[in-house]
């Protein structure tokens, strides 16, 4: 008599789990492949599930073997191929689990989804927040799993070697960066205080010691030419010392406070290092980031996603000598432009005060042509799509308002000098309008070229540079 053939079988870490169909139930056995001995025999009790349903579930499930050899048949959501690994996302009893099969070692390991999932270093804080939300809710809410599968991709599996190598680099970079930032902020914060105190200290030193010195000199040498000259020369010399001393004393005070703060920062970093060492006990981290990304049309180093959009202020090619400003938003559509773009399609959206306000998708061909003719740009800011949407909604509302005004026969006023000009009547020009809108995103436009003061004339091109110049500039941390 022929032995009964299994209907399904899985190989897991040197064991084979075979499922056999008996008349109206399923039975499985766990077999040690090396010895061929049956390690465990049993049947899975699928409560309330028909045999047909069980059979169809087996097609899409992964097996986890307990210490005693009993098997757990877990539903698989997603499979990924990552270099030397095959990664499956499966549903455990209390949490989602990553089933990681190494092609090199032929070993399958099971990692807790919640503990192992980690946003890649390129992720924007808002994207990290979304990942955390998915992490916490996806076991209960299956829509979050769909979101995870649709919108995110696994970048890599971080094993202990990668973790240790990168951890060292990260620690060094992080410490240097944090320390530099801290010192810079400390001095920036105290700049006015130092300036005021250096003058105050200089004046006090000069007044107190100068008075005493000149009194004693005139008392000793008399009030004649020699006495007066000596006291004048000594006062001049003293004033130099007082100025240097006046500057050094507050500088030393701020320096002392800064170094104290730096020590605290160092302690904190030591603590963080301990935390990192603790983390190393976790066998693997699975780094994820938004699945679909696209490079910015201004600078291919800038990557946008549906969660993080790039906001840039441009000038030109239109306007007086290219002095027409507009806000450009680039990103992957997240259904904000419903009906205009397909979901996750790269878009360029242009908002400008012409007048009236115009806000529309920038035709890509037209954009390329305008780039050739001469567009200048500001720095590009990476902002979460949610925040940008708030700004775009505000622009849309203002646009509607202006349209109503035009329909009523009113005219929208614009002043080339800008709203800050003392020569004008406080009306916006294209740039000051855009700058006000960007303030909604906490963007403060820095002036980067020499030009007239804003109180006379706000010249948009003073705030932008050429695309080529932008490509030469060092890019801050990329966030998607």
């Amino acid at each position: 008599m022929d032995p009964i053939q299994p209907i399904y079988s899985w190989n897991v870490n040197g064991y084979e789990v075979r499922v056999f169909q008996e008349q109206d139930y399923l039975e499985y056995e766990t077999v040690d492949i090396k010895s061929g001995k049956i390690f465990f025999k049993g049947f899975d009790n699928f409560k309330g599930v028909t045999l047909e349903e069980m059979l169809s579930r087996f097609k899409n499930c992964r097996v986890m073997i307990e210490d005693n050899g009993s098997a757990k048949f877990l539903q698989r959501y997603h499979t990924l191929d990552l270099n030397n690994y095959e990664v499956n996302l499966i549903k455990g009893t209390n949490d989602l689990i990553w089933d990681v099969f190494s092609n090199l070692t032929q070993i399958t390991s099971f990692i807790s989804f919640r503990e192992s999932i980690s946003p890649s270093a390129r992720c924007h804080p808002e994207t990290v927040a979304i990942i955390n939300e998915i992490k916490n809710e996806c076991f209960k809410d299956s829509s979050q799993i769909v979101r995870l599968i649709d919108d995110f991709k696994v970048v890599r599996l971080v094993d202990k070697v990668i973790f240790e190598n990168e951890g060292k680099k990260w620690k060094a970079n992080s410490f240097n960066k944090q320390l530099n930032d801290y010192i810079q902020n400390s001095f920036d914060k105290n700049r006015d205080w130092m300036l005021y105190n250096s003058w105050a200290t200089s004046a006090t030193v000069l007044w107190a010691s100068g008075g005493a010195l000149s009194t004693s000199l005139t008392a000793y040498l008399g009030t004649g030419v020699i006495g007066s000259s000596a006291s004048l020369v000594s006062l001049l010399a003293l004033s130099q010392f007082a100025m240097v001393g006046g500057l050094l004393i507050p500088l030393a005070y701020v320096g002392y406070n800064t170094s104290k703060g730096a020590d605290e920062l160092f302690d904190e970093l030591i603590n963080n290092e301990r935390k990192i060492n603790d983390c190393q006990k976790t066998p693997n981290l699975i780094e994820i980031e938004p699945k679909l990304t696209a490079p910015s049309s201004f600078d291919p180093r800038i990557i946008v996603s549906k969660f993080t959009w790039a906001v840039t202020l441009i000038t030109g090619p239109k306007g007086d000598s290219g002095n027409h400003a507009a806000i450009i938003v680039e990103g992957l559509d997240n259904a904000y432009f419903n009906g205009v773009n397909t979901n996750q399609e790269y878009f360029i959206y242009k908002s400008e005060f012409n007048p009236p306000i115009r806000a529309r998708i920038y035709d890509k061909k037209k954009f390329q042509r305008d780039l050739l003719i001469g567009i200048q740009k500001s720095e590009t800011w990476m902002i979460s799509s949610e925040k940008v949407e708030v700004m775009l909604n505000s622009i849309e509302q203002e646009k509607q308002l202006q349209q109503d005004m035009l329909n009523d026969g009113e005219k929208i006023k614009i002043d080339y000098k800008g709203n800050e000009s003392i020569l004008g009547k406080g009306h916006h020009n294209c740039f000051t309008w855009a700058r006000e809108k960007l303030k909604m995103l906490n963007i403060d436009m820095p002036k980067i070229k020499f030009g007239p003061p804003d109180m006379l004339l706000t010249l948009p091109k003073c705030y932008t540079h050429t695309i080529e110049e932008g490509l030469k500039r060092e890019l801050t941390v990329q966030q998607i």
Partner: protein
Amino acid sequence: MLDQWSSFCSPSYSYLVNYEIQSRMYNWLDENTEETQWLKLPALGMWCASNTLTTVTGTAGIAEVFFKGLGILATSPFTNNRIDNAKIGLCEIFVHAPKNVLRTIFVPIDFLCGIIPVCVEPKHAIMKVAECMRINLLHAKKGTLKSPKHENDLDCLQSIVKPKFMKYQGKTFKRLKPDL
């Protein structure tokens, strides 16, 4: 009545003639320079000519207003509203005529200030002056020069010219890169 009139410019045929001629000049230039690349020279020429014309008509306007005021004042005893007419005559002589003098003095300053935009973006300057002249002509015909309505219309000038100019630039760029 005098207070109300004092801020206005007296209806003047010299001004009307000036705006009539300049409006035609700039509209002609605007229409005929749609395809032109080299605009600076014709625009500068036109700017010089129009400012000369403004100076001439402005000077004529001073004489016109003065004599008009003198005429109204001299004929006032023979009219029904003697006092009112005399007031209007005095206003023309002592308010509007000096204002016209100031306006004429201001023309060379305006000329110098205007040279910069004419050189930087001649087409925009042409469009702006053409629109400005259209508004001025309209108010000169109505006799409401320098009235609040006129001031308001001039305030909105840029909002009319800017989109027009941008449209013009759009067409120019399309001509430059027809394939894109």
